[in-house]
């Protein structure tokens, strides 16, 4: 059946939401009770929402997939009673790209181009986790040169800043502070301009590769970074004035989308969502990778688990990232920007004219790809959205046998039904925005 026939044959397939009245009691209990690990009787009491006697009809509405505030193609089905949300079901898959299948046919050198497009708001973090997993399988994870490691840290933290600035912009716009969209993007442009100078592209860089990074930092990068930090620092204080202390902002975000520590852990949520409940879990500090154990930074933790905490955590994480970037600036070592292992790293272009061996290595790396020994490994890092992990099972050939990325937003979206239950429809937008999903990594 061609694509046109599929379109003309009918509606979208139903992966929808059943009204409460059609669910069995056991199904309802499992929805609520499993997460909170409650006994059946406790869950039964929790699951009861006062039903208005005069209005016992609930309404199921559909938000998305094309909707200005659903951060990409997320479809939410909400069961409402009046303005109150009883149940919510996110339906995803509208951006499924078959990246894991594609990853099985790309070599490890090309894998970065595929993986970087998953979480397109922080592409360097995707590349980093893929490269770390590949290096672990190759056995070279202890031999990456210092300069390459510190460069990776610099780029990763700048990417965290640009991703959180994107959050500031979209969160502001979703809640009505439309000018925040312009301010957030204005700051983001500064970071993207630096990325363009270093990596050649504004987005989807494919810069962090197995073995190191693709090229050295250009001359004058220190001045660029210092200028960037000097420009952004006072503007973050402007955001505090514009939003954090403002009563309307607080009313809209405080007490909205509350999630408890138990729920977050049970649902596998990580990143700002978990930290907003009070759990101080940040992989950069608790399971350090790169050289995060050698730089000083604070892990920002909230206490109420609501949307305001998540906003404040992300705002302050930008400040912490700037702190880390300053330390990296001072301590950036000199040296190679990629490992000098001929099997993994292509030779410099000038040497290809001189040495036959260099030519052959270049040819083999770019056509066949380097072979990775058999094995399987899972490596996780802290992306702006939570824990991103890469599971690679290799069979000794030049392409991964199975490449799976554990996307933080895929798991964090499961928190949304619990955050929305009992809230108002107008808060749905605030909650989606505070979860900050990126649908590219949700659907892969």
């Amino acid at each position, binding site marked *: 059946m061609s694509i046109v026939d599929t379109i003309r044959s009918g509606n*979208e*397939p*139903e*992966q929808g939401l059943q009204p409460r009245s059609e669910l069995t009691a056991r*199904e309802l209990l*499992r*929805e609520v009770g*499993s*997460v909170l690990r409650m006994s059946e009787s406790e869950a039964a009491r929790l699951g009861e929402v006062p039903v208005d006697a005069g209005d016992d009809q609930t309404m199921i509405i559909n938000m998305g997939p094309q909707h200005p505030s659903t951060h990409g193609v997320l479809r939410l089905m909400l069961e409402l009673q009046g303005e109150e949300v009883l149940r919510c079901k996110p339906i*995803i*898959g509208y951006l*499924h790209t*078959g990246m*894991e*299948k*594609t990853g099985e*046919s790309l070599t490890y050198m090309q894998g970065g181009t595929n993986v970087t497009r998953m979480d397109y708001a922080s592409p360097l973090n995707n590349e980093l986790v893929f490269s770390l997993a590949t290096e*672990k*399988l190759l*056995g070279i994870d202890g031999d990456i040169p210092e300069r390459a490691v510190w460069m990776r840290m610099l780029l990763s933290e700048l990417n965290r800043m640009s991703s959180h600035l994107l959050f500031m912009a979209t969160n502001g716009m979703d809640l009505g502070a439309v000018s925040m969209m312009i301010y957030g993007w204005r700051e983001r442009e500064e970071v993207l301009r630096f990325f363009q100078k270093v990596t050649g592209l504004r987005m989807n860089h494919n810069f962090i590769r197995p073995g190191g990074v693709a090229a050295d930092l250009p001359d004058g990068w220190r001045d660029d970074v210092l200028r960037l930090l000097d420009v952004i620092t006072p503007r973050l204080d402007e955001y505090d004035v514009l939003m954090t202390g403002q009563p309307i902002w607080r009313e809209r975000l405080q007490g909205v989308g509350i999630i408890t520590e138990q729920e977050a*852990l*049970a*649902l*596998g*949520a*990580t990143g700002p969502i978990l930290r907003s409940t009070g*759990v101080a*879990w940040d992989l950069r500090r*608790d*399971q350090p990778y790169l050289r995060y154990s050698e730089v000083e930074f604070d892990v920002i933790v909230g206490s109420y688990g609501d949307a305001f905490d998540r906003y404040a955590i992300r705002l302050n994480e930008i400040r912490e990232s700037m702190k880390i970037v300053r330390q990296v600036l001072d301590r950036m070592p000199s040296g190679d920007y990629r490992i000098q292992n001929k099997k993994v790293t292509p030779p410099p272009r000038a040497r290809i004219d001189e040495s036959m061996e260099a030519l052959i290595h270049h040819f083999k790396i770019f056509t066949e790809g380097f072979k990775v020994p*058999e*094995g*399987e*490994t*899972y490596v*996780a890092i802290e992306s702006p959205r939570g*824990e991103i*992990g890469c*599971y690679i*099972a290799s*069979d000794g050939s030049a392409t991964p*046998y*199975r490449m*799976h990325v*554990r996307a933080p937003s*895929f*798991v964090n*979206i*499961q928190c949304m039904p619990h955050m929305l239950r009992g809230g108002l429809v107008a808060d749905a937008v605030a909650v989606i925005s505070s979860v900050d999903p990126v649908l590219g990594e949700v*659907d*892969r």
Partner: protein
Amino acid sequence: MSDSTPTEQEQTAPTPEPVTVHGLPLTDSRGQAVLHPSREQYIALVKKLLDDGYAMCVDLTAVDYLLRPGRPLPDGIVHERFEVVVNLLSLRDRTRLRLRVQVPESDPTIATLFDLHPGTEAMEREVYDMFGIVFTDHPDLTRILMPEDWDGHPLRKDYDQGRIPVQFSADSSATAVGGAR
């Protein structure tokens, strides 16, 4: 001790006990701890690990080993076509543990982790969608990434990638822009 013969020394030195976790031998994969429970031991093991402090199930995925029936596995484990891989995290002890459960092609079912770790709901749906492995007693086992009426399970090794031959436009009025590869 120095005047005893080498064979006597070998006989007196004790062989190291293999490390076990809840009765299963602990294997090592590039420095990471891996256990290989069977389908029957799976749920009980996860429950015990939950009590041990492995509070978060970070990832649940699967691998189709159709093309690698002879892959290296510890002694006593029967090779099957599918493997369900579960990654657990203990925040208290800052450790990770991986479980690899063999699932046969003839009966691709395994128990659901939803009641222990509700966060696996979406992950199990994705595994069902992509591999066709059925999780018994899962609350809502429907496709999550592909359209609901899709045929086939895309990440299986016998499912084609679906590349179409790329058309290179000979004249400028053609609609499709040709791409490399």
